[in-house]
């Protein structure tokens, strides 16, 4: 089984006499996606091991209330901790420093003053054998757990704006995801939703889905949903004018003619600077959105990103940027459209962006409970949650329900998980992996993992 690189952050527990000693390591280790936890005493360290289940402990040889040998012995007494590697920092080759290390199997030693780069290399070397997953990771098939599962999230359908279905939910959706929308009202059929986009209004998240793209029997009720009453609240939809940057003028002219047929009016920006200048001038909220045919990572790309980020959330028009990158992920400020795209996809995205500018939340009268569901594969579990595989990138930070019969039992019905990182498996496949944290794993990790390990062992025993 392959795992995406950098999906699981490794937790490293430093046991040092002064916490300042780890400060220098901070930026480099954060860049390397390591999570650092610091303790200054053996007592505190043991408590943190219980709490955090680190993947590596880096300790001074001599401690204020013991030594590295005491730590090793205490960890050996508990099966769950005995395989956690320990790296010992030896200040000098003295008898005092070396004695506690005798007869014990440490993962490695660092001698003298700790240099961040040298420490990072040593840490990487020790963690290399389990680089992509937690050392506690148990594969689903090895734990006799069903791999097929469903990711679900609760949402409320609040109506339509033109050809956009509007839902209110706790989660962002990814445009590449195909979601099964299951109404709570069983008389209504299910529908497949795709090309979703996200609109943030204050702290609320709204998901827009183009009605034209909806498939399944649920389309019957979706096409007859009431329009959100924008007139009632006296707020009209923003105009269909968009700032349109395309480096090729003749291409722009073609877009102008084609999109004009969809009543979308383009304002030409010949380069990113021009687009930025036009954007800064846009203060009356009448602009539909901004389209950038490319957003390079050079000075002009950085400059327009700065301009975009400086505009307050409330008045910032949606920005759509085309990209050939397979791993570009949409953010609150910029939504990406993958090149080469089809005309329908572009028109639907522009339409959703324009509609999202309206104060539609004031006109909402409908509230229809639904579930979004999408199939996923459970790859395995670890001390914080586990890893899932999907055919699209799940949005980081999303709170989802992991529908899996065995896990539901193990988690006593509390199936809520939070996505903490997402990565594409590799360039040749269309598979994405997501690291999730289980709500039930929050708190003391060792207690959670002991319980999970016991249940997995019982399962294995039963099956044998």
């Amino acid at each position, binding site marked *: 089984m392959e795992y995406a690189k950098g999906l699981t952050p490794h937790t490293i527990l430093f046991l040092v006499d002064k916490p300042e000693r780890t400060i220098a390591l901070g930026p480099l280790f954060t860049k390397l996606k390591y999570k650092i936890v610091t303790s200054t005493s053996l007592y505190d360290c043991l408590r943190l091991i219980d709490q955090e289940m680190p993947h590596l402990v880096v300790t001074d040889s001599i401690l204020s209330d013991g030594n590295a040998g005491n730590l090793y012995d205490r960890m050996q007494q508990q099966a769950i901790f005995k395989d956690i590697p320990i790296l010992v920092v030896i200040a000098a080759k003295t008898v005092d420093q070396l004695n506690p290390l005798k007869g014990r199997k440490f993962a490695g030693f660092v001698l003298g003053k700790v240099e961040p780069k040298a420490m990072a290399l040593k840490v990487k070397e020790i963690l290399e054998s389990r680089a992509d997953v937690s050392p506690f990771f148990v594969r689903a098939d090895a734990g006799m757990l069903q791999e097929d599962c469903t990711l679900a999230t609760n949402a409320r359908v609040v109506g339509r704006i033109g*050809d956009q279905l509007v839902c209110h939910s706790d989660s962002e959706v990814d445009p590449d995801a195909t979601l099964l929308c299951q109404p709570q009202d069983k008389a209504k*059929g299910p529908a497949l939703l795709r090309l979703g986009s996200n609109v943030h209004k204050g702290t609320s998240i709204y998901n827009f889905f183009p009605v*034209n*793209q909806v*498939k*399944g*029997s*649920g*389309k*019957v009720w979706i*096409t007859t949903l009431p329009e959100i009453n924008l007139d009632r609240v006296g707020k009209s939809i923003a105009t269909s004018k968009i700032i349109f940057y395309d480096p090729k003028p003749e*291409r722009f002219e*073609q*877009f102008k*003619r*084609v*999109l*004009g*047929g*969809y009543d979308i009016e383009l304002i030409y920006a010949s380069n990113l600077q021009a687009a930025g200048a036009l954007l800064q001038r846009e203060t009356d909220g009448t602009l539909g959105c901004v389209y950038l045919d490319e957003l390079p990572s050079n000075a002009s790309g950085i400059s327009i990103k700065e301009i975009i980020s400086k505009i307050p959330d409330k008045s910032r028009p949606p920005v759509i940027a085309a990209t*050939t990158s*397979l791993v570009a992920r949409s953010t609150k400020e910029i939504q990406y459209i993958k*090149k*080469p*795209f*089809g*005309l*329908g*996809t*572009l*028109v*639907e995205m522009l339409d959703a962006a324009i509609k999202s500018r309206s104060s539609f939340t004031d006109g909402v009268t409908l509230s229809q409970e639904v579930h979004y569901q999408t199939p996923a594969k459970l790859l395995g579990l670890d001390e914080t949650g586990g890893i899932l595989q999907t055919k699209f990138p799940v949005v980081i930070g999303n709170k989802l329900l992991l529908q899996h019969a065995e896990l539901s039992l193990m988690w006593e019905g509390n199936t809520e998980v939070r996505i903490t990182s997402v990565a594409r498996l590799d*360039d*040749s*496949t*269309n598979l994405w992996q997501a690291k999730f944290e289980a709500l039930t794993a929050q708190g003391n990790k060792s207690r959670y993992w002991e319980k999970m390990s016991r249940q997995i062992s019982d399962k294995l025993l039963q099956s044998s």
Partner: protein
Amino acid sequence: MERICLIVDVNAQGLDQEWSEKVAGHEYALKLSYVSADEVAPMIETGSVVAMVIFADKCVQPVLDCLQLFRKFVGAVPAFQAIVSADPDPYYLSEVYEYGIEQFLHPDAWPQQLAALLEKVAAVVEDKNSIEAKTLRLNWSIAYGDQGQIIASKDALAEAAEYDYVAAYAKANALQAVGQFGEAVEAYRASHRLNKTFRQASSGLGESLLVMGKVDEAIEILERLERQNHRNVDRKAHLATAYLEKGDRVKAEALLKEADEIAPGHPRIAEARAEILLVEGKVGEAFKMMDNLRDVGPLFAAKLNEMGIKLSQQGKGKSAIALYKKAHKVVRHELRYKISLNAALACYRMAEYTVALQYLARCEKEFGGTYEKVEKIKLAIQKAMNKKPSLQAG
């Protein structure tokens, strides 16, 4: 039957040499078959093609011809087709969107992207109950003019047509093929309601409205589509005939000129010109033009039938039969049974009962089963033959 995905090489820049190497190491759910643009028609007509990926950097006529062939012989299922092009220009996007095509694969990543696409295609094609599989079956019946099977396949899609725009569109095509233009209009409308960006439904609606004589509404729909893509020859031809119906010869000519500039010598332009000649009563000239036509659609077929009936009713039976003979050669498969029926009626009017019965037999064969109107005419012929046996024609 082995299901095939065509790899159509329009660029002709060495793909024939490298494609098999590029796909090596990937698993494809359908068999891949490399063809040039010219080989698409015979391959598609085998009935085993269910998917198609076209390699074309630019939108040239062969691309549109391939899409047309796929729509005719496989079905209007955009999800089963893709184009490999790094940077298609907006007009290209717009022209292929006419066929619902939205999937573009990148030249650097097409082998893996195609594998993912074909996995989905194979899954729905193999599921006999899927809307797509039913749509393909219905389309096959229409393409080969099997009227009985058209009805059966249409009924199989009945429920799905209430919520799926592809199913509703396929149903509309079926209704158009069996001559139920009023019902076809409603089905096209339903398809359009379910997906307002599905241009094929709007085009079909425009065409059916023209057949029914609702010219103003047809023009409104076709003009809206024209604003979104001004490079579609089919639509320009439809609009030209619509404006001619309204008496605007200048506008009609201007549209045909534009169409000629886009695709010189396109058969749809000749069809529209023949139709104009027919409307203007220049039957002889129209006849000459008809020699170059193929796959004539319901609008012109309706005009030909109308003209034939008129001639027959005016006592010009022989001229009517000559018209029907020509028409039968040029109209689409599924429209032929009506020509045969009208030819039988013309013969009946001329008391050429034996020939009439031959036309009726052909009509029944083309219809694919028992046809009520055929039975009625047969009965009338029988009565007439019993009354005046001596008048029978040989």
